[in-house]
């Protein structure tokens, strides 16, 4: 348990800057997600914290002390690898006990701590198995137990759920969060999956090309991304170009390919009238309605994708861009059908084009 601080952390490979001047402060017991696509620098950041890669510039403070000169095997940082990286020649017990044996603990204490942690990850009774005799979910929990059993100051999780099927993912999300809270370990989780990030973390950091794009609570990041890029990454599906007008009461009009959409003035604060803007909306916030009103647009269904609980439509002809509502009604929607799309003003995010 400890605080973690990154100050101006930078990593360059030749001319390529993988991590660019990263600043971050994690409180004791906090769970922070580094979210971004491949090559955004999130894994490099993790490797620097663990000590596997050396920062080009900047420092990493654990409990206020710089760890730059400390080799990885003296940092006491637990790490969980995306591919688990279990020791294939050791049993579950030996895998988990590996770090404890190195700490020169007595045998009974090792046995007790391994038993405790295996109970915590619900693997009791499997201690004599070899990793290849376990399912993916079980291997993952062994890896988690192995990283936790040494009681590290900081826990690093690299894509902890990406190799699991949908049912296991949900189970493990709950498990990881439960265990992390139970032990109160400061945790950094690296992921490319925005759902994983918002469901696990107390705070989410969105990264792109080595830079932090946004830091915020899961809710802020999910509902109010700070840029069109972050919105795109967070699963916003509909992006509409337009020109914003002056304030009219609580709202401002945006002229989008000849049609008018209203957005809350609060969402467009500091954007001058006449500026070109991008509007972003999530699929699940766009509805099909029967009667015309504010922010309703007629269009034609050009694609229907059945997704189980919802059906995702692509509607053309509303504005220049395709609008993608997600509907969860049982009535079948046909290709070519004319529909009325409603984009609620409160659900629109507005970004000034640069």
């Amino acid at each position: 348990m400890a605080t973690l601080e990154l100050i101006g952390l930078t990593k360059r490979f030749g001319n390529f800057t993988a991590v660019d001047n990263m600043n971050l402060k994690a409180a004791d017991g906090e769970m922070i997600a580094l979210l971004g696509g491949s090559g955004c620098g999130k894994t490099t950041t993790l490797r620097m914290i663990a000590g596997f890669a050396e920062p080009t510039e900047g420092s990493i403070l654990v409990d206020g002390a710089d760890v730059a000169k400390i080799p990885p095997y003296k940092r006491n940082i637990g790490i969980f690898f995306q591919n688990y990286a279990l020791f294939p020649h050791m049993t579950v017990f030996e895998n988990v006990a590996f770090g404890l044996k190195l700490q020169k603990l007595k045998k009974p204490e090792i046995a007790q701590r391994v038993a405790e942690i295996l109970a915590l990850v619900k693997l009791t009774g499997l201690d004599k198995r070899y990793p290849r005799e376990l399912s993916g979910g079980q291997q993952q929990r062994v890896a988690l137990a192995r990283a936790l059993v040494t009681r590290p100051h900081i826990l690093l999780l690299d894509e902890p759920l990406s190799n699991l099927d949908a049912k296991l993912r949900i189970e493990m999300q709950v498990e990881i969060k439960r265990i992390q809270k139970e032990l109160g370990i400061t945790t950094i989780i690296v992921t490319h999956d925005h759902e994983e990030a918002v469901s696990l973390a107390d705070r989410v950091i969105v990264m792109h090309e080595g830079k932090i794009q946004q830091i915020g609570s899961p809710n802020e990041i999910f509902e109010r991304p700070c840029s069109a890029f972050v919105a795109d990454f967070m699963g916003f599906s509909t992006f509409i170009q337009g020109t914003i007008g002056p304030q009219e009461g609580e709202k401002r009009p945006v002229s989008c390919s000849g049609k008018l959409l209203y957005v809350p003035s609060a969402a467009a604060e500091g954007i001058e009238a006449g500026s070109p803007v991008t509007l972003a909306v999530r699929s699940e916030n766009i509805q099909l309605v029967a009667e015309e009103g504010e922010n309703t647009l007629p269009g034609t269904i050009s694609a229907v994708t059945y997704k189980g609980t919802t059906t995702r439509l692509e509607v053309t002809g509303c504005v220049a861009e395709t609008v993608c509502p997600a509907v969860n009604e049982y009535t079948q929607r046909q290709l070519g059908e004319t529909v009325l799309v409603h984009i609620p003003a409160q659900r629109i995010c507005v970004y000034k084009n640069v």
Partner: protein
Amino acid sequence: MRKKQAFLLALPAVLALTVFFLAPMLYILIKTLATNGLSDFVRFFTDPFYLDILWTTVRVSLVSTLVSLLLGYPTAYYMARTQSRMKKVMMVIILFPFLVSAVVRSYGWMVILGKNGLLNQFLLGLGLVQKPLSILNTETAVIIGMIHLLIPYMILSLVGVLQSIDPNVEYAAYSLGANPMETFCKVIFPLSLPGIISGCVMVFTMSMTSYVTPKLLGGSKFRMMATMVVQEINVSFDWGAASAISYILLAVILLIQVLVVLSTAGYMKRLGGGKNA
């Protein structure tokens, strides 16, 4: 049906080995036993002269294998882990000796190790030795030549297995508090054991049966099993002794291989497919 077709594919090679290798081997054995009974074998095991040759052969092979392993392992580890272009360069350097015959390479060593050879001139010139060392025509020269000849096999066998070890497994060991030495002893070494065993068995076997290197670098008084076979045939005209020696050589190699396989079988089984996750 599929099995039958697969067997057809293997048939030409199986036939060739049966006709040109297995049959002559059996013929030699039967002929020796029919003519002299077991006397050639008994003589080998009762005559210190022959036993000494067997021991020399095993000793030279063990030392060559061990030194090849010790020299080859760091090279192989570097090659397995580096991302630089050096890897391709090193691979070419390691494969290059295969293009030069063992005879030519042994002559090369004669030029270097001889009384007036490059090594002695160098050492004398620096004043490190007062009179030239006699390395050529000793066991040391044979071992040097042998290592040079066989180390590529060791390296190639090690690179394969080291490459298959997930680097994250090493990082995991570090993160759990293992220093580089502990990581090597507890993780890398045990995981690379299949490559170590296959490399050692290969190098040991080739060293046991080598003829050119001991013949050219060991001098006339140095004898190993393979050179002794030729000597029995060409000098003593004793075909019985020659076939007994060749069969004893074969038996010793098989015995050692079986011992190695048996003693590591349990561990290999535990490693299973080797990689997982």
